[in-house]
């Protein structure tokens, strides 16, 4: 990757993060209402918050937002806080910090998303390549339309169907949660097995709905690659078919797939968030759902900020990995 290209990527990432931060700052001020203060007054009215917590909270909010100071000062302080990952306190559970809530939810989301995206990526790429290689296969001819239809559907819709069939009708898998709620020990093999068991349906819904996306793009790429001269040459040299398929065909066709992975990232994150909502999976999407339900605005903003950060950085990493896969882009750096 050329240096100027890398620089452009970095500036883009910075712009994305800045936009996300500023949005959370500006919107409450544009709409002329401050949800944080509203929520505060609300709990003060209902007497829901205990007196001591409440006083502390008001003090913390004032220290943090300093509504009496000029807006530019508020803004700069706010940016400074976010840069140091200080996301403030949760409104609903005051002494808890938003950062801690997110930290405990994040491993669930990352685990679920990473595993299922990887499976879907590998499975889809292989399937897409195979449909081109074995053009006349009946089995594949049946699979392709099914996969295409699944690719048109959002993850959570597939998830709902899976819950209905495998949990409600057949009772094979749990419909919600990340592990058995009554469990006291949260480590050891037993626990991990339980976690895996609960992750089957949410994971499957992501895999089913995104395999088709990869398969379709891989298919398109393989068709193009098959027409290339080097494929004919490899064939003519008498290389065995598997070598031609893997080292000549797939190796070249897989490159755009990685670019697509970077572009698809945002969609995967949104999709995973909604899958968690549907399955009540204890990740960051479910945290978002709960925060919305109890109007915990600081947590909502914190989750949105962290998600945008994650997407921005994973796209950057994908761009950096690219030269490792494609020697042509490596050369241009010299």
């Amino acid at each position, binding site marked *: 990757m050329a240096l100027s290209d890398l620089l452009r990527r970095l500036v883009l990432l910075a712009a994305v993060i800045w936009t996300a931060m500023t949005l959370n700052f500006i919107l409450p001020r544009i709409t002329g209402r401050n949800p944080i203060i509203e929520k505060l007054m609300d709990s003060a009215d209902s007497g829901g918050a205990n007196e001591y917590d409440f006083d502390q909270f008001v003090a913390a909010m004032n220290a943090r937002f300093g509504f009496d100071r000029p807006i530019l000062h508020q803004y700069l302080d706010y940016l400074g806080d976010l840069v140091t990952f200080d996301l403030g306190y949760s409104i609903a559970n005051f002494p808890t910090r938003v950062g801690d809530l997110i930290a405990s939810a994040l491993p669930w989301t990352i685990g679920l998303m990473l595993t299922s995206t990887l499976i879907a990526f590998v499975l889809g790429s292989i399937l897409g390549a195979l449909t081109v290689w074995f053009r006349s296969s009946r089995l594949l001819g049946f699979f392709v339309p099914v996969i295409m239809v699944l690719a048109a559907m959002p993850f959570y819709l597939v998830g709902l169907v899976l819950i209905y069939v495998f949990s409600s009708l057949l009772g094979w898998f749990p419909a919600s949660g990340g592990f058995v709620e009554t469990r006291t020990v949260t480590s050891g093999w037993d626990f991990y097995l339980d976690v895996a068991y609960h992750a089957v349906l949410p994971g499957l819904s992501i895999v089913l709905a995104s395999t088709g996306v990869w398969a379709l793009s891989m298919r398109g790429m393989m068709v193009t690659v098959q027409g290339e001269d080097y494929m004919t040459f490899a064939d003519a040299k008498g290389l065995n078919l598997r070598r031609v398929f893997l080292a000549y065909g797939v190796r070249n066709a897989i490159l755009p797939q990685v670019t697509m992975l970077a572009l698809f990232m945002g969609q995967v994150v949104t999709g995973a968030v909604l899958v968690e909502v549907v399955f009540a999976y204890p990740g960051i999407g479910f945290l978002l759902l709960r925060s919305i339900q109890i109007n915990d605005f600081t947590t909502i903003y914190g989750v*949105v900020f962290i998600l945008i950060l994650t997407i921005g950085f994973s796209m950057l990493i994908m761009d950096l990995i690219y030269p490792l896969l494609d020697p042509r882009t490596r050369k241009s750096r010299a």
Partner: protein
Amino acid sequence: MSTATDDRREVTSFDADDHQRPSEPEWGTLRSRWRATLRYMRRNPSLPVGLALLSALILFSVIGGLLVDIGDTRVMSAPHSRAPADNLWFGSDRQGRDLFAVMVHGTWLTVRVGLIAGAVGIVFGASLGFIAGYFGGWIDNIVNWTVDVLLTVPAMLFLVVIATNVSTPTEPLSSTTMAIIIAALAWRRPTRQIRAQVLVMRTAGYVQTARISGASNLEIIFLEMIPNLLPYLVASFVTAVSAAVLASVGLEAMGLGPQNEPTLGQTIYWMIQSSAFMMGLWWWILPPIIALVILFVSLYLINVGIDELSNPRLRRKA
């Protein structure tokens, strides 16, 4: 969808393509025109199948609208948790909404959100794409960067923040407001797609010819470019509608939707919140899911069909 055709002749000549086949009837008389259309549809079934599915869904909503009272979508308008019966075709949910009325009204509301947001998105996006692509320069730079930045972030995350700021406990969102909120971000992809197309077209022979013959910028845009981009604009619109429905159902499933209106997403939200799955209320679970599946699949098929119609290169591949 975004297959950039660097050779515009291919896009404009899809009907000329048919002339080359001796078996194709002439496009002269009305009757033979119909026959040619039918023949084409048999070759490219995505478009008619998609359109049929979508029409079926809309017909269900329109005809159903004549049979039910919208008031029946309110809580307690029927006995709760009843299975489908003669006088209660789709049964009722745990809060006692008549689910047939909910489906009839909700399907239309959800489609309408998609149409409003998609229309605003395509009009605004296409204008911006044309301005950026046609005039270039610093405007193009600004537009391009803004779209790049905004496209990185999933719409859903922006929408969550916007929706939490707009809806208040005393005054929940209406589905129209939600459509407008979604439209606020629906222009990003159309802008980028149209801009890319315009960049290519700007140097095409017929545009250059028009320019030399002294056509004004507006004439070139409206008389030369837009007619050629029409299939593309339609495909862009369909994508935008699909994305808007996706976003609206997502927002609703998270509880940020119009609490007082029975859209499909809102129905799914109530369904999850009142543990319909545990109670096995299949008549509550299946209809909104089926309606959404039909909606997404039909929009997808229409898109594939238009793509095939306007981009003959895909035809040879298949």
